[in-house]
């Protein structure tokens, strides 16, 4: 608020001027008309006095009210703010100095809160990723290795056994192999190394393939081969949103089909996950949806979840592929929820 910008007169001056104006008019009327007041005043005098005073007060109310109107609009705009729309800033109404300053102070506060929120989400997401990585590592190195050892030993026994025993050992070996594959699957889900090594497109198609195989649900996967290169955090968020959306579909929606598309619109990358399940009707907007929203916010992406055209739900994520520095500063209050990704 060091900046005393091109704001107009202050509210105090305005109210003062308005009052002075009204008083001067009333005083002038009093001086210029032949009206006099006797003591004690008679009825007609009292009536004139009452009308005059009422008119003065109403005039004052009207003019002062107009002066304060921008303040009410500002309050309304502030009330419209919702924390999930991080880009929203209150527009400046009017040019009274206090209102301009108040708006600016409010927007500055939003900036600070947004910055702190973003930092804390970043820290907690990084901690979450580290923890996932540690669990994946342990699953892989300890349980995975033990199962591998078991598998090799069963294999050894099987080779020296005969007849029925051999068949039983083969079954045992198969069961052990399935368990090993499950453990490796869990470890892989926790730590998407595929993302580092193969990139977002390949990682998401591998995800669709794996989840499709596991669940028996047909998961269509349409990946644009010409995607712009996203920052590593943006890739991770996009991958995690696809993973979470598909997991929700498989667990809760009772869907028979799901479709994932990853395409680009100029510099933006669009992820769409649609299914034909029960949709959002009775689902509570649980931690899954909140988690996707938080992750999207973190990278300044737009996240939406809508009912599908006929049934089911559609999750959409629009990620800005430009680096932070190349983006315009959004500072209007006209658009509340951003462009719905199409």
């Amino acid at each position, binding site marked *: 608020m060091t900046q005393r910008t091109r704001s107009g007169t202050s509210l105090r001056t305005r109210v003062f001027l308005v009052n002075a104006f009204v008083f001067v008019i009333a005083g002038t009327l009093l001086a210029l008309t032949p009206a006099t007041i006797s003591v004690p005043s008679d009825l007609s005098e009292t009536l004139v006095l009452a009308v005059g005073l009422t008119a003065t007060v109403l005039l004052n109310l009207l003019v002062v009210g107009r002066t304060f109107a921008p303040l009410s609009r500002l309050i309304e705009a502030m009330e419209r703010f919702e924390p999930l729309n991080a880009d929203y800033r209150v527009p400046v109404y009017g040019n009274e100095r206090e209102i301009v300053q108040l708006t600016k102070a409010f927007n500055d506060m939003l900036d600070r809160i947004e910055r702190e929120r973003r930092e804390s989400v970043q820290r907690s997401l990084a901690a979450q990723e580290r923890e996932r990585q540690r669990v994946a590592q342990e699953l892989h190195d300890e349980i995975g290795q033990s199962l591998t050892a078991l598998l*090799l030993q069963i294999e050894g026994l099987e080779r020296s056994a005969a007849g029925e025993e051999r068949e039983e050992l083969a079954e045992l070996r198969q069961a052990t192999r399935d368990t090993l594959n499950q453990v490796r699957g869990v470890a892989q889900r926790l730590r998407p190394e595929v993302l580092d090594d193969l990139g977002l497109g390949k990682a998401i198609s591998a995800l669709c393939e794996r989840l499709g195989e596991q669940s028996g649900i047909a998961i269509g996967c349409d990946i644009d081969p010409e995607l712009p290169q996203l920052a590593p955090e943006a890739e991770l968020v996009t991958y995690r949103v696809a993973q979470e959306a598909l997991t929700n579909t498989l667990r809760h929606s009772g869907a028979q089909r799901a479709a994932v598309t990853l395409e680009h619109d100029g510099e933006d990358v669009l992820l769409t996950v649609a299914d034909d399940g029960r949709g959002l009707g009775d689902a509570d907007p649980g931690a899954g949806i909140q988690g996707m929203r938080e992750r999207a916010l973190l990278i300044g992406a737009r996240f939406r979840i809508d009912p599908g055209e006929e049934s089911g739900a559609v999750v959409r994520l629009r990620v800005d592929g430009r680096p932070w520095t190349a983006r315009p500063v959004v500072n209007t209050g006209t658009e509340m929820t951003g462009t719905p990704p199409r």
Partner: protein
Amino acid sequence: MIRLLVVDDHAAVRAGLFGLLRREPGLVPLAACGSVGEALREARSLEPQVALIDFQLPDGDGLTLCRELKLLPKPPRVVIYSAFARPALAVAATLAGADGLVDKGVEVDDLFDAIRAVGRGEQALPPLEPEMITRCTARLAPDDVSVFGMLMSGTSIADTASVLSTNAQQIEDRLRGMLSDLLADSPRSQSAPS
């Protein structure tokens, strides 16, 4: 007959593998070791034809061991046998000069086939997708990219050194640096993005 050295840090895996290999005709496991140090000692004295090496070892990793083994007077051929599922491991193993890479999830007969192929002088490395090589290249220091390209296309360390008019030791050092760059953890989980 293929003489083998088995290297794995997990005792039960080592034992199971050793037992299976001993039963398999044509394959002769000579010793089973649990660390890089032990493996190098055994390889020097036993001179195996093929070393079957796990990726994760207590005192280093399988690819570093692969490099050390390749510098021996009679270098064994190397098969990396790993549960480490990262796709980039295929690129790193190729760069490290391994002759084969087998996932611990495959059937044992496939492992034996790979060992026999490598023993015959063939390679048992998975195909490398161009996209994967591109992503891996992005993880390297810009100076290293030309060395990476030459080594990946099969140029020997000595030839690479003479083309870049430097010595083999320097190329070897850069190769090892690249191996750790290729398999480094993603920066994502290391620090908060800015």
